[in-house]
């Protein structure tokens, strides 16, 4: 017997709006910005022979857009599987840049200064095209082999740039002459992309009655056709107030330096993964893996000169060893215990060379070893049929190895090589009535670490227990939030209520507070988050259903900054969704969905009495940083009419309204202008209407 099911969908879509109106919508639409009408075509084919057991499934979607996908699955289940797919994906930049640059997408673009807004609009986008193949063979009931590979080609260009402000330490040729030459510049230079990424997976799996074992190999091979970016710098650039001035010779040289693009790299991983089903109540599992990642792109071949004598490539190598053991057991009917122990050691074996020369000082690159040990243990106890309690414990140790003594710490004010964090968790769940249950969970964690490393202003570091001690001069230091002592508290409340057979309501409240006890007065001091959500689902009738949710959250970050400035960041977000689905008649299905998101970020700045007069004047005049708001309404209406047993028509209308008030590229009519006159535009309010009508014909 053979079963064959086929469906073909074809239709038309229409979208309004110009490039500026559609910038956000077109991020992943797969449509050209000039395209207002587009075709819709997809198909699904399934054929199964019940005598041989061979089944084939072929699907295709979005065939008439730039996001087309094709997939084939051909198998005799329990014996062999062959699969293949082809996928495309285009991502468009949501900011539209107007620039005089030519050669975008090449490794040698030519910059030409233009009066802001008088250049050409650019369509920055990246395009991925990938092919995947897979094969699986069940060799015997206990043995299975899998092989899969994927190759992806990525092209296009994305937002990037170069910039420099000549410091006084450099020769006058760089700083230039004030008012006559420009000694600084931020340039718009899109990054060209033309690369291939190939991945391969091979695996042999063994399953006995209680034991499962799997041996695998994973390989990743990244090849970039472009080694470096060589922008051609114009002779004149705009100064910060918009006057076109000759570029100082030193600055021109620095801005014209080649920029390294991502180098080729490779990674090979071997792993053994397994589980032992000790009995019906207890299971142990594990994974051991060893990965070698290397990077040895030849500098000269990549167009990068000036390497230390005798060094032709980095010879980068990072060996990672991972071991994880997990278990789950139920020693008593009411008690269950789970745990994992994980160890990972990233051993950076990249050779050292004198890549940094500053005057008469020579520094090497820096190795970044990273070793983590993490343990988690959790016990759940069912006190009664209504009450259930959970206790959890976690411990994480991070060891960043020995600081490379021949390197310098410039740019980072304080580091510490070891941190340790302990987490405690408790949860109580109660089934209060048949229709109502609730839970409360508390989590507390504390992190501390080893001594701090003080920058020697030269080679290496000195270990100090208190970086703020007199004479150390670290009081202006910023201490990484990932390294600083931290106390974290979280509370979670959950409720699940079903007052009627047809109505269910879920609620959740999450509150979290992080307090940093870093010894410095700058950097992150504390953060907090609160989020409340309510979801509901109501079956109005057997044919009609309505569901929805409301979510509201707040996030805060308080941060100390130099010049006695303090910045408090507040982010509030509200998300609402409402959906209706139903059957109007036996042939007509209808759906409506409305969603709304508002995100508002506000910034509060404060200065103390020691702040400079210029800072105080600027803050008083400007009123501080403006808020950033994002609002999006999306309305979707859909209908499906079943013409007969074989065919149906589906229509979908969507309206998107996006308002994004963000000062990154423009504020109050004043655009951010690159030194070559490039400006970026994101239209404040964007409206898009999309209509899709698809006819589907199916047959068996």
């Amino acid at each position: 017997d053979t079963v064959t099911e086929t469906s073909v969908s074809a239709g038309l879509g229409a979208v309004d709006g110009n490039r500026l109106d559609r910038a956000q919508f077109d991020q992943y639409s797969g449509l050209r910005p000039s395209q207002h009408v587009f075709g819709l075509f997809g198909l699904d084919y399934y054929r199964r022979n019940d005598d041989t057991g061979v089944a084939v499934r072929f699907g295709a979607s979005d065939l008439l857009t730039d996001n087309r996908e094709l997939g084939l699955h051909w198998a005799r289940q329990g014996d062999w599987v062959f699969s293949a797919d082809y996928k495309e994906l285009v991502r468009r930049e949501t900011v539209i840049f107007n620039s005089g640059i030519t050669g975008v997408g090449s490794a040698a673009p030519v910059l030409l200064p233009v009066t802001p807004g008088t250049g050409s609009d650019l369509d920055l986008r990246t395009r991925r095209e990938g092919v995947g193949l897979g094969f699986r063979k069940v060799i015997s009931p206990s043995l299975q082999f899998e092989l899969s590979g994927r190759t992806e080609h990525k092209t296009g260009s994305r937002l990037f740039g170069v910039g420099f402000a000549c410091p006084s330490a450099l020769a006058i040729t760089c700083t230039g002459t004030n008012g006559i030459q420009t000694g600084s510049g931020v340039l718009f230079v899109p990054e060209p992309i033309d690369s291939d990424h190939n991945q391969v997976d091979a695996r042999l799996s063994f399953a006995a009655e209680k034991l499962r074992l799997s041996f695998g190999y994973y390989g990743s091979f990244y090849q970039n056709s472009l080694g470096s970016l060589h922008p051609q710098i114009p002779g004149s650039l705009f100064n910060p107030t918009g006057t076109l001035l000759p570029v100082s010779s030193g600055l021109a040289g620095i801005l014209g330096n080649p920029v390294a693009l991502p180098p080729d790299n490779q990674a090979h991983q071997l792993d053994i993964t397994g589980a032992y089903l000790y009995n019906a109540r207890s299971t142990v599992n594990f994974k051991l893996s060893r990965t070698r990642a290397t990077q040895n792109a030849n500098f000269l071949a990549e167009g990068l000169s000036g390497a230390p004598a005798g060094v032709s490539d980095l010879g980068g190598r990072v060996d990672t060893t991972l071991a994880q053991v997990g278990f789950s057991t139920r020693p008593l009917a009411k008690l269950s215990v789970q745990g994992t122990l994980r160890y990972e050691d990233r051993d950076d074996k990249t050779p050292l060379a004198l890549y940094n020369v500053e005057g008469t000082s020579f520094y090497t690159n820096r190795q970044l070893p990273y070793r983590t040990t993490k343990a988690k243990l959790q016990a759940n106890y069912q006190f009664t049929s209504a009450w259930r309690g959970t206790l959890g414990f976690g411990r994480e140790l991070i060891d960043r190895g020995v600081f490379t003594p021949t390197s310098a710490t410039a740019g980072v004010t304080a580091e510490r090589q070891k941190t340790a964090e302990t987490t405690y968790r408790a949860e109580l769940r109660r089934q209060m009535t048949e229709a109502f249950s609730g839970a409360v969970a508390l989590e507390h964690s504390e992190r501390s670490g080893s001594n701090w490393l003080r920058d020697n202003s030269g080679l290496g570091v000195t270990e100090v227990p208190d970086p703020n001690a007199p004479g150390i001069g670290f009081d202006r230091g910023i201490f990484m939030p990932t390294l600083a002592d931290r106390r974290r508290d979280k509370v979670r409340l959950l409720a699940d209520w079903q007052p009627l057979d047809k109505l269910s309501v879920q609620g959740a409240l999450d509150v979290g507070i992080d307090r940093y006890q870093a010894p410095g007065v700058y950097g992150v001091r504390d953060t907090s988050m609160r989020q409340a959500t309510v979801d509901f689902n109501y079956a109005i009738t057997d044919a009609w259903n309505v569901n929805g949710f409301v979510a509201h959250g707040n996030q805060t970050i308080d941060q100390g900054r130099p010049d006695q400035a303090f910045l408090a960041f507040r982010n509030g977000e509200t998300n609402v969704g409402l959906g209706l689905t139903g059957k109007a008649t036996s042939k007509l299905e209808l759906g409506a969905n409305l969603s709304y998101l508002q995100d508002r970020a506000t910034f509060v700045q404060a200065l103390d009495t020691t702040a400079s007069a210029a800072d105080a004047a600027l803050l008083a005049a400007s009123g501080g940083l403006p808020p950033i708001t994002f609002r999006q309404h999306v309305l979707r209406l859909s209908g499906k009419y079943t013409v007969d047993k074989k065919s149906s028509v589906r229509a979908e209308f969507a309206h998107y309204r996006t308002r994004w008030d963000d000062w990154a590229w423009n504020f109050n009519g004043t655009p951010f202008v690159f030194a070559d006159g490039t400006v970026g535009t994101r239209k404040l309010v964007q409206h898009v209407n999309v209509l899709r009508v698809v006819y589907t014909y199916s047959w068996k």
Partner: protein
Amino acid sequence: GVDAEASKACVECHDAEDLSDSSRHAHSHPTDARTPGCTTCHGPSPGHVKKPAGAPKQLPPDITYGKKTASPVAVRNAVCTSCHSKETKRMLWAGSQHEAADIACNNCHQNHTNTDKALARATETELCYGCHKEQRTQLARPSHHPIPEGKMACRDCHNVHGSAGPKLAKKDSTNDTCYSCHAEKRGPFVHPHEPATQDCASCHNPHGSTVQAMLKARPPMLCMQCHTPHVTGGVGAVGGQPGVFTAPRVGVPPAVGPNTGGRNVVNTWQGRACSNCHTQVHGSNNPATTNPTPQFLFR
């Protein structure tokens, strides 16, 4: 294998009229000797097949999977894992976050259907939102992976059945998971950026953000959480605000004038902020030893 005899009694009542079409489900495959029968998952259920003497009605099957089931999660999951733990991607289920949270396989999966929501990319995400509501809001933000557009799904980064990575990441670490699509960030580089080598999530929120490139906070604030910033720009302000290009008051020069260097309040806070100049935030492979050396990730 299937105990066809034992299942015969089931189909006397639970025929094609009673159950939805699941002919394309893997459990229905006609020639795969491993496919289960009714009793494989529900137990022999003699009290359900035939009403016990004295009982007011038939008993439910030994193991049930409905919303109000009395079968414990562990019992239900043991049925599934007895076969499905043979797949490598499910070997690390025991002790994983979802197992520890007492999630049952049937909380996400449906069997008697051809359209199991958990198996289709288009419907999987909505299923995950059922519990992961914070991610539902984050993915509605403007800078996101193409998940709302249906071009990616949670499974592209997470293995919900257990993994050796954090947050059930598909690969052994967050970075290794990211590198499977963003291999250009792997390096190693001549001048690495330490947090980028350790955890991409130090700076990025892969579920979405209102800041370009899915950054967790707006630069320069994000960068200044670790770095001592240039003093110019100590007070955040942007072009278009009073005091930036115009004098805030008599005797006080504007924050940005004709001779102001590139590290001014506008170039530090607007455009790409810090990465206007420090453009190689994922690391630079430029070996040049000449000043300015690429260690500050300029080029």
